């Protein structure tokens, strides 16, 4: 069965309790056609393991990388992705939409 948003948050809790560094990424805003709705979560641990998705695969790689910095310094970050980005060929949304993702550490 597919993991629901809630399963993902349960996973975040148990990863943290198991002593791992954990960050939660949440889609907080979307414009145009976005692959995942506002409120979608991705949870990431300090080894780069992750569960859930914020874009159906387009930008997860970058979010997981940024999450490592968030886990390291504890400062929340807001990330934006869209085809207009100069990095579009590397990370961007092929569907033409834009999304904003909030990444925070679980303390």
């Amino acid at each position, binding site marked *: 069965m597919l993991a629901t948003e809630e399963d993902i948050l*349960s996973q975040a809790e148990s990863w*943290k309790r198991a002593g791992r560094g954990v960050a939660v990424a*949440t889609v907080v805003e979307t414009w145009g056609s976005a692959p995942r709705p*506002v*409120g979608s979560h991705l949870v990431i641990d300090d080894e780069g393991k992750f569960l859930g998705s914020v874009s159906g695969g387009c930008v997860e790689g970058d979010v997981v990388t940024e999450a490592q910095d968030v886990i390291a310094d504890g400062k*929340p970050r807001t990330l934006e992705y869209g085809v207009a980005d100069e990095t579009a060929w590397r990370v961007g949304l092929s569907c033409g939409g834009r999304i904003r993702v*909030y990444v925070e550490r*679980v*303390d």
Partner: protein
Amino acid sequence: MKLDLLAALNEERRARRAAVLVTDLGAGAQRLVKGDAIADDPLADMLDRQLRMGKSGSVEHDGKSYFLTVQAPPARLVVIGAVHVSQALAEMARMVDFDVTIVDPRTAFATPERFPNVRVVAEWPDKALASFGLDRYTALAALTHDPKIDDPALDLALKAECFYIGALGSRKTHAKRIERLTAAGFGQDALSRIHAPIGLDIGAVSPAEIAVSVLGEIVLSLRKKPLRADKEKAA
């Protein structure tokens, strides 16, 4: 996010209670507002609106940006009747993340072999559902055709304001059902909430196709229209 806040959010979900996590996107401060405490929160109106839509979202208040992580209880589906259509419906509904329970007092039908992946209760609906806690985040589909089994379940679902109530059977069968439920004291408004003949009109023929039409109708009721109790509250 503080671990105790995350744990509290997860706890509310396990107890099937609504809750909203409020995040100040500028300062990073967070608070958890439980469903019964929403009216006392400074963002009460916004929390209420998002919860009614069942959608997380960003809001502005006093020049600050907040993100509201909305957690409505996970939707459940109770299927009355461990019949052929139910076998297909149970599997499909599971894929759509419904928590599925099959109820049928006929032990020859209600077997784990026929329903390997969902909860099967071989009891009469009034007994099976007494402790189940039907609520407005639950859908009920009555599929036996047998008034002895379907009617008590419909009675409970109507009283619990389930977000979807469907009953299998022809228009003629349903007309008789309406007569019985009217005699049992239900008014026209309540009875009009029963979807019958059940399912979206997609020309379904096979049991699996009928399951698709029923599941489609359930998803439509969950996502497209506000919940009944919410509409009344808004009116």
